[in-house]
């Protein structure tokens, strides 16, 4: 009964004060609201970006080894330490590399890929997508399934046919119904391709928006240098992954220095991406936290003003039996409630924004963000509230009561 009585009085007083100073209460909470809003939103966007990239790599399938230019995903360079060296300035792989890599007995798949972002036209429809020059082995390697038509074949590659197998999103954008796309023609940078197949949705946004064509058909206008951005290696036996990796490195080292290419498993890429985004997210949250601190200082400022304003009230309460702790708790409760109220508003607003942008970007509010919002706003309330509250509690009753 005693604690219930005390607590209800505490809340009663708090809300009586907020009611008397509505504008001030809202403005003070606004500081915390903006802080929590920015932190939660940054976490949500960071997580969204991370998930997006993770999705991209996960869709590539497991027993997959990827040869990239540059040393972004090197084991030693993990965490993006050598990010500057990046893709740029790395090796430009060509057909000779593909031939060399095909000599690895354990490599069941050696698939070159030339990748280009480009405007794709079909009749009057136009969209931005990608053209990927690759071999017929890409489809089984990535476990692609057909919705309509057929894949191109080895002979398509050798005969340099202008046939294209489209990702589902691209087909739907240009022709609405993938069935209707078969036999139609698309145009990319003056090159015309006949659509012979449409692939089932892979979940990889880029893949789903790509026109896959025989790599030899891109040589010329699309790919004048006859180079590849990536070479995919695949094995049917998981145990061979390390062997393939080592042998591929050895082969490529004959032509390129060790910093201009990387041979990576998908899991390594994932862990590197995770590492990079953990750092990026932390930085974003740290920046967002600045506004939380500013909000906290706002609360402290108001609480100091409130203590001065209510000095007489403190004196009266002390005279009728409030302990220092009672007064401390009162002011602390007000600071914390103010802060948590702001935090709650910020969280609600952030949720609405995330909900709104979800259609275009996979942003997510997770438990961490919610816990953080409440935890941090409570801590800020306590931290920035305790100094004013202590000043209130330390006032001697009579000094306070005589205060004008």
């Amino acid at each position, binding site marked *: 009964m005693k604690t219930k009585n005390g607590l209800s009085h505490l809340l009663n007083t708090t809300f009586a004060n907020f009611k008397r100073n509505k504008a001030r209460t809202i403005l003070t909470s606004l500081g915390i609201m903006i802080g929590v809003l920015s932190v939660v939103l940054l976490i949500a966007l960071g997580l969204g970006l991370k998930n997006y990239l993770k999705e991209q790599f996960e869709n590539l399938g497991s027993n997959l080894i990827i040869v990239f230019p540059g040393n972004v995903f090197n084991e030693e360079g993990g965490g993006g330490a050598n990010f500057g060296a990046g893709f740029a300035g790395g090796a430009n792989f060509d057909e000779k590399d593909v031939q060399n890599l095909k000599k690895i007995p354990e490599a069941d798949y050696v698939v070159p890929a030339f990748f280009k972002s480009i405007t794709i036209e079909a009749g009057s429809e136009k969209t931005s997508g990608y053209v990927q020059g690759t071999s017929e082995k890409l489809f089984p390697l990535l476990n692609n399934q057909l919705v309509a038509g057929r894949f191109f074949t080895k002979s398509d590659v050798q005969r340099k046919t202008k046939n294209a197998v489209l990702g589902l999103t691209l087909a739907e954008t240009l022709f609405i119904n993938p069935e209707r796309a078969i036999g139609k023609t698309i145009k990319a940078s003056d090159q015309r391709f006949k659509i012979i197949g449409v692939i089932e949705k892979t979940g990889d946004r880029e893949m789903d928006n790509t026109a896959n064509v025989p790599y030899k058909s891109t040589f010329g206008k699309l790919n004048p240098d006859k180079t590849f951005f990536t070479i995919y290696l695949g094995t049917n036996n998981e145990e061979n992954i390390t062997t393939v990796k080592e042998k591929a490195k050895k082969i490529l080292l004959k032509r390129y220095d060790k910093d201009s290419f990387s041979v990576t498993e998908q899991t390594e890429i994932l862990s590197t991406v995770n590492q990079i985004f953990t750092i990026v997210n932390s930085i974003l949250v740290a920046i967002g936290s600045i506004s939380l601190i500013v909000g906290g200082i706002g609360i402290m400022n108001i609480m100091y003003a409130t203590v001065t304003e209510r000095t007489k009230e403190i004196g009266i*309460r002390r005279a*009728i039996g409030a302990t220092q*702790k009672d007064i401390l708790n009162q002011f602390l409760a007000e600071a914390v409630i103010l802060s948590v109220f702001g935090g709650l508003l910020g969280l609600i607003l952030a949720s609405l924004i995330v909900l709104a942008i979800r259609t275009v970007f996979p942003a997510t509010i997770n438990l961490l963000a919610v816990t953080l919002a409440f935890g941090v706003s409570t801590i800020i309330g306590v931290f920035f509230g305790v100094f004013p509250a202590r000043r209130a509690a330390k006032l001697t*009753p009579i000094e306070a009561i005589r205060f004008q």
Partner: protein
Amino acid sequence: MNLTLLLSEKSARKNSSPMGKNQKNQQPIIKLENISKIYYLGDEKVKAVQNVSIDIFKKEYISILGASGSGKSTLMYLIGLLEIPTSGNIYLNNKDISKLSDKQLSELRNEYVGFVFQSFNLINKFTVWENILLPTKYRKSKINFNPEKKAEELLKQFGIYDRKDFFPNKISGGQQQRVAIARAIIMNPKILFADEPTGNLDSKTGPEILTILESLHKKFDTTIIMVTHEKEIAKRAEKQIYIKDGKLVKKYL
């Protein structure tokens, strides 16, 4: 330390300063021993109370009379545990209060004493009802009466029950002072302190408030200590203490 024990402590100390016939063998409930209070106003040292010794006994009705700035209010606050003396000792039922913790002092202020101020000192954001009940919110142990019922009785007794949901600044000064008295006595204090209780009231309501205080003294044997600068009002008390420049004087001039 057990507060209940402290309050009910039986006399262990012989009373050495008889103040009146009927108190000769009685033990003072509050004893001030050579009390001084010095505070600083900027660089200026103010000796508000100097070397004052007083014994206060059960059921007394005392007035402290002094001019403005004489230190009479400071003296009252010292007796009422609101102020800590610079030097000297205050004993409450023989217990040195300087040895009490903030919690114990607060508990005493809550249960043992009540205050009525010249400027009422009600909390304006609370209604009359909430103001009266405020002391019960700070009671740390179980209350052995129904606070709401007690508040209702007091409001009715003082003829302001119809004002219970009003805010203090919406009622008259006389009514506010009644609310303040109700708040001061809701916990059944042994001692009621009144600091110029009629100072802000007109010549009609002033005496009414005094009558209420005196009836409490008669009915419940509440010890009343009243500070005033008006000789006429001071005379109503059973005993007068005169103070001038922070020192007790025999006669008030």
